[in-house]
């Protein structure tokens, strides 16, 4: 089964689907939605097969495929997945059908074309799968740039509020980051033996000149730091997250932003190990500032979607320290965080979208006491909030705990400051809950008929799988950590770091 060309088929499948959906006439909007949903479910089914075929104890990279593309440059269509890419591909496969179902009525009210919207979503899935499945640096770069296009149109054409402003800002931030990466990609090709193949480049990583490697690292890092986003490159995200349709926003922070952290893990760390170690203190500093800074900003937001965007920036800070702490626990925690954050923040964005769709406004001050009207929906919002503040029993606890405990063993100060972030997380979640669903009922809400309609069957089907996954992985995360762990260890081997021994054991005072 592992000879089956999973990755190329997975990548192309949604593109074909997008083409099919795009050709469905506007008058048959329901058919377009149905085709898009079924198509994304087929992708999910195939991904599950791929997960089953992945050998946890096997090679670091599996499902390797390579087809010639531009022989003169040595660029190939090379696909391969390690455990890190595998869990991200699985996350994509799970989130897309959920988001498609959640976005069912998003276009109905507007004058826009529903088939176009769902075709864009499938196109976006194509670029997402491609960027994580690529094992050729040039191919990765191309997907990295192409993925902007569907999201640009989703925000710009189907968003709300200052959507044009947000879309352009999003595009330019990413594009400029991409230009830095392009420069670094070309530089890498020149000094790295005129190849784009990741495996070959990683092997030659040690022979790069120190200064050159640091410059190249920086080119990649700036692109990824904008994408993730890390403080101070973050200001595009609240605008985009606030303007994008809620489902698309879930994909934006749940999947697309992970390309940044994934890129750092795969490309910065493995290709420039010395530079990664050299830059680590700076990166850790940015990440920790981001945790505290963005959490404080989230507390102060009056727009639900912007609020969730800021919580995401804080969460990316945790992922950032996990990556640059260079321990097995922190690294595995960071990757697990990427998955769990996709589920938790994805759920949060989707539920916020359900509230916004009912109220016709995303402003916190337009709610108040809504729990009285929509108790179940308020309960789901609360659960999503709990997952976001990493309560034990929900999956994000495991990843946050791993990141912090792993970081503490190498960087005590950073870990302690980051731990204070869990207090702020409780503050922004609970205050948001209090202002929207608790307290006296805002009289304006009773005048909106939609606000008295509690969760529908479709909405239950949307949230149920995410809630179930968050709980199951909260109690039994091992199936996922076992997949991630070897890939993280291989990455840390590339970086050239080893876990510190427990200090008391290292001193020989306690038998290890």
């Amino acid at each position: 089964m592992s000879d089956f060309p999973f990755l190329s088929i997975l990548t192309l499948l949604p593109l074909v689907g997008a083409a099919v959906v795009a050709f469905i006439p506007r008058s048959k909007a329901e058919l377009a939605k149905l085709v898009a949903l079924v198509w994304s479910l087929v992708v999910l089914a195939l991904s599950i097969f791929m997960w089953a075929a992945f050998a946890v104890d096997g090679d670091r990279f599996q499902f390797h495929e390579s087809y010639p593309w531009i022989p003169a440059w040595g660029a190939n269509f090379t696909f391969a997945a390690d455990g890190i890419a595998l869990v991200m591909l699985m996350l994509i496969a799970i989130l897309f059908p959920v988001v498609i179902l959640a976005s069912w009525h998003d276009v109905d009210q507007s004058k826009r074309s529903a088939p176009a919207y769902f075709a864009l979503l499938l196109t976006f899935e194509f670029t997402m799968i491609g960027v994580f499945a690529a094992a050729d640096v040039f191919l990765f770069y191309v997907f990295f740039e192409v993925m902007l296009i569907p999201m640009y149109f989703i925000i710009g054409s189907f968003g709300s509020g200052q959507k044009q402003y947000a879309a352009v800002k999003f595009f330019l931030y990413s594009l400029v980051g991409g230009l830095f990466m392009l420069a670094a990609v070309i530089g890498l090709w020149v000094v790295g033996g005129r190849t784009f193949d990741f495996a070959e480049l990683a092997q030659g990583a040690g022979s790069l000149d120190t200064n050159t490697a640091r410059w190249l690292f920086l080119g990649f890092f700036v692109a990824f730091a904008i994408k993730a986003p890390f403080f101070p490159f973050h200001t595009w995200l609240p605008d985009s997250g606030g303007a994008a349709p809620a489902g698309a926003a879930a994909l934006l922070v749940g999947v697309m932003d992970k390309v940044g952290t994934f890129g750092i893990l795969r490309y910065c760390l493995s290709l420039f190990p010395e530079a990664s170690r050299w830059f680590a203190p700076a990166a850790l500093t940015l990440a920790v500032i981001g945790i505290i800074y963005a959490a404080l900003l989230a507390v102060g937001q009056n727009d639900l979607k912007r609020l969730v965007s800021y919580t995401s920036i804080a969460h990316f800070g945790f992922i950032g320290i996990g990556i640059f702490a260079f321990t097995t626990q922190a690294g595995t925690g960071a990757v697990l965080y990427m998955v769990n954050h996709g589920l938790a923040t994805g759920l949060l964005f989707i539920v916020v979208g359900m509230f916004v769709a009912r109220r016709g406004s995303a402003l916190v001050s337009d709610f108040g006491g809504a729990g009285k009207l929509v108790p179940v929906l308020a309960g789901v919002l609360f659960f999503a909030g709990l997952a976001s503040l990493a309560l034990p029993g929900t999956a994000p606890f495991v990843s946050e705990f791993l990141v912090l405990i792993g970081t503490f063993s190498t960087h005590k100060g950073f870990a302690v400051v980051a731990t204070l972030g869990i207090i702020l997380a409780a503050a922004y979640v609970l205050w948001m809950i209090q202002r929207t669903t608790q307290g006296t009922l805002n009289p304006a809400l009773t005048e909106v008929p939609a606000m008295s309609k509690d969760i529908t069957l479709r909405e239950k089907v949307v949230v149920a799988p995410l809630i179930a996954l968050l709980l199951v992985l909260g109690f039994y995360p091992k199936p996922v950590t076992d997949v991630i762990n070897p890939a993280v260890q291989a990455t840390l081997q590339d970086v050239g770091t080893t876990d510190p021994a427990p200090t008391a054991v290292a001193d020989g005072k306690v038998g290890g």
Partner: protein
Amino acid sequence: MEQTVEFAPATGVLSLIWLLVAIPLASAAVLLLLGRRADKWGHWLGVLSVAASFVLGLVFFANLAGLESGSRSAELSLWEFIAVGKLQVDFGLLFDPLSGVFVLLITGVGSLIHLYAVGYMEHDPGRRRFFGYFNLFVAAMLLLVLGNNYVMLYFGWEGVGLASYLLISFWYTRPSAATAGKKAFLMNRVGDAGLAIGIFIMFATLGTTDYGAVFNGLSGLSATTVLVLGLLLLIGACGKSGQFPLQAWLPDAMEGPTPVSALIHAATMVTAGVYLIARSNPVYTANETLQLVTVAVGAITLLMGCIIGAAKDDIKRVLAWSTVSQIGYMFLGVGLGGGAYALAIIHLLAHGFFKANMFLGAGSVMHGMHDQVDIRRFGALSKHMKITWLTFATGWLAIIGIPPLSGYFSKEPIIAAAFEREVAWEAWVFGLAALLGAGLTAFYMTRLFVLTFHGPARWTEDNQHPHESPLIMTIPLILLAIGSVAAGWLMSTSVADWLTPVFGAEQAEPHGVLSHTMITILSLVVTVIGAGLAWSLFRRGTALEPQPAGVVVTAARRNLYTDAFNEAVFERPGIYLTRALVFLDNKGVDGVVNGIAAAVGGGSGRLRRLQTGFVRSYALSMLTGAMLVVGAFIAIQLGWLV
């Protein structure tokens, strides 16, 4: 002489201890997922699940008692929870003498309070939801005491925090309830952060979070590390147990329904901090400074609770401050260490009975008085609510420590132990604090009792017909009253021996600054003085309006200005900082980047175009940002080259 901690694997019936947690958890899931469909019978499922856990707890307890005293423990690993590199954390449970008594307290008192709540919440449309949360609490609390490593403890620790939040803000449409719930969760998270960092230290130094391995590895740690570790755990304990300086949330938690106050905010959850320190006794015993700090926290808190409690007029708030104060005694006990560990646990169990009894009694009074909570508006209720009056009386006599009720057997030995500190000034300071606390306790509890049940009736106009509560509420009261009377004597004779495997045998010779007989006499004298004073002051009732008061009483009414301090030092600056950052992020970080771009692009006139999405400005803004980073890099490089 190092003692090695070892736990025996669970065998036979004891391998089913996971059911203790699973049953209430399953019940909570059913109640919350089925929704209104379970409204008719949900509360009975809630009661039954806790009762079932209690019965199982008794069976397991008997089994544990049947084991040889040397291997009286049962450790059970359910599944691998986290296994990454050297970090190995199992979903593991430990049933030993310490967790055993907690299981019986939680499920035993819990069953009675669940039963009581069936009556108390009868007319509340959210009763099923209430029982769902209540069961969730019991499950989390049992996990907290049954975990065999600190991560499991943390799991339950935050779980009870969640349940506490849900139940404090149960009547979520009241803004005060929603605020109180949030406040409780936030202050608890401050403590949780401390506990979490403590766990990180264990892993970084010892490579494990299992109780046994941590305790056995302590000898390899420096004194400073042990001190820091213990202080971090103490922060966690203070947050959960409402101890100074994290006490402010507990009185506000009275916004929740009264059964919640009785079970969570008196009998069980708030004693989790005592459990944490008692469980970690090898850590605390290993460092004298750590013990001194813990004793000081206990002494400060117990006096603070008494003083504030004496100035409050809300029956539940008086009881809440009393809880703060009584847990102060427990902290004092666990801080003293040695034989006092067991004394603190005995006081914890006795307190579980008499305080639950009084909270439920207060609920019964409120039930008969249309939810009135102001003790100035009670009086003469002894004639109308005989069962409530008599059961409350046992709780009152127990807490002030009148022999032979339970409080006498559990509190007086802690006072005596405080006088036995090795350093003389410590013995005097902490001993006298505990003694003074006993007198103050007698004063404020007698004030509460007399104003509620005796003296002239001072009822409001609309509320002239107080009535006794139904049997479903009075039966738990009677059972808890029996416990309040008898428990102390029973436990003081056997519990200390039972806990020996956990705390080690008591070796210290009594060498106090005062003889034990002297302390007994003194504590009875201050108790009688405090109670007599209160009785004579309040037997004719009290003014219905707040009276002008001196500095001390005014300060006590305002919680000794601790809330004002928190507001001035944390809340207000926090709010201003947040507002400033929101402004800065919108106008600053974004604005600076965009602004530099505009300047580079040629004049401020272009700033306006930013808002319409002027493409070149953005490109420039990004370029500027990136140039800044590159510039910084070059600067570092140059410095590095030099």
